[in-house]
Each structure stands twice: as C-alpha cells, then as structure tokens.
C-alpha cells in the first residue's frame, strides 16, 4: 500500500513539473520531432543528466541498485523505429498522454485507447516475438562503463559537458 502511495505522489510531482515545463503538448512534441523547438529535449536531457549523477552517487553509497534492461538490438532498433512512427502520428508518448489529458488536451484520450489496444496486440504476438526479434543481437544487461571497462565517473562528466554544450548551441540558435 505504501508503495502505491509513493507512486501516486511521485507521479503528481512529475506531472506538475511536466506541465510547468510545457513539454506535454502536441505542438512541443512535434516541434522536437521537426527539429524546430527543442523544449522537450532540454527538459528530458536535464532530467537524465541530474538523475545520472544522483543515481550513481546512490549506487556508490550502497543506497540504490541500478535497474538495467537487457540490450537486445532486434527489439530496440525495430521497436524504436516503430515507436517513432506512432509518436509522430499521436504527438504524445505513453507518460505524457496522461499529462496531456490532465491539461484538457483530450485528443490524448484517443491516443490512450490506441495505446491500450497496441499493448493488447503486443501481448497476443509476444510468444512469437520472443522467439524471433528478441533473440536478435542480445547482449544482455550491459552498461557503457562496463563495456568500455572504465569507472562510471569518467563517463558521467563527458555526458554532462556534452549536454551543456548542446544546450548552449540550442540557446544560440534560438531552438
């Protein structure tokens, strides 16, 4: 029960910030896909960079465990391409569709119905996919520091600096 309340509170905070950042709107999401408005990239990448530092600190202090998904090239590449087509048509992603509905953009409701249908279809074909696509290029649960064989604190600053350079460029170009 406590864990469900944690989920709700975390969601409320995140939904509040998503709305304040103006990142859950169709126009913003399509703006990013059309490379004309980088608002959601700024938001997402800042979140990722801050979390990256925090999560590895927690891990080093023994306060958290990483949750690593297996790298399966077949699933990630095909899934990514298919997701991109759907995202471009819908203009909301799974999490932001709930947020979009929350700020009254109710076309997201049709998207949510579509996503429930898509999940149901995937559940039907999962046994076949598991034996085919999900066996193509399976590298298991790997991380970048592990593959490169160096400590994560050498890699994290590279990402942080790369992100800051990118942000500076966005601001210069008025994206």
């Amino acid at each position: 029960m406590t864990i469900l309340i944690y989920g709700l509170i975390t969601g409320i905070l995140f939904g509040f910030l998503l709305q304040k950042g103006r990142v859950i709107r169709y126009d913003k999401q399509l703006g990013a896909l059309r490379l004309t408005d980088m608002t959601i990239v700024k938001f997402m990448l800042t979140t990722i960079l801050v979390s990256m530092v925090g999560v590895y600190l927690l891990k080093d202090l023994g306060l958290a465990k990483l949750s690593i998904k297996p790298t399966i090239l077949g699933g990630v590449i095909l899934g990514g391409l298919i997701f991109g087509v759907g995202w471009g048509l819908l203009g909301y992603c799974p999490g932001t569709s709930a947020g979009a509905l929350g700020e009254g953009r109710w076309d997201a409701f049709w998207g949510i119905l579509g996503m429930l249908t898509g999940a149901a279809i995937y559940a039907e074909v999962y046994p076949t996919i598991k034996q085919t696509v999900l066996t193509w290029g399976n590298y298991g649960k790997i991380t970048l520091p592990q593959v490169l064989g160096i400590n994560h604190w050498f890699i994290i600053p590279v990402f942080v600096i790369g992100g800051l350079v990118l942000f500076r460029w966005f601001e210069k170009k008025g994206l």
Partner: protein
Amino acid sequence: MKENEDKGWSPYIAGALSGIVSILSIWIAGKFFGASTTFVRSSGMIEKLFDPERVAKMEYFIKELPIIDWQWMFVAGIFIGSLIASTTSGSFRWKAVPDMWEARFGPSKVKRGFVAFIGGVIAMFGARLADG
C-alpha cells in the same frame, strides 16, 4: 492564446527538478520512472473482465501481471499533477485539435482522433518491442 506563446517554467529548471524527484524515488522507493508497462497491465485488466481464464494463460500477462502497481499509480499521478498545475495557472484548455495539427490538417476532431488512435496503437507496439 497560441500554445507556443504560453510560457511556463524554464524547461531546464523543470527538468532538473524532475531529475531530483527521480533520484528521491529511486532512493526512497527503489522505483525508476516508466509508463508503458502500465498500458500492458491495464489492457490485461480490461481483458480479464471478459475472459479471465485466457488472460491467466497468456505469457505476456504472466510476465507483466494485470495489477495496479507503483508505476500504474505513477501514471495516474501524472494526470493529477498536470491537472493541478494547469488549472492553478490558467493554462488548462479543453481542446481536441492541437494548433499545429489544425494549421496543417484542419479542425476535424474525428480526423485528429482517428490518427491519434492509430498512432497510439503503433507507438505502444514499438515501445513494448523495445522494452521501454
């Protein structure tokens, strides 16, 4: 007011605060942000209303049980958080056709709804395939 003239917080500030919320969530609850598994669980819950025996035997619904968990509440929370932020700042708009869509494809709610639905089907299939 056009969507793009409606300024909220800086995406860097809102994004950094979201990062802190994510760290606290991992620290306190051991939970990482995610949303798409919730759609699988919800589909399973809906299908269970019609044919519980079939759902109980399906491999994907055994892997992702049709139950309400942390992430399900997280996604419900996103809806509530966005509702609170938009209604308290006057940026809540009841609308079915986004500005950018209307400028290109016209004001039809049916057309927009149909494409949103199809887009949703494709997007979720891809998201699940990539396990994301």
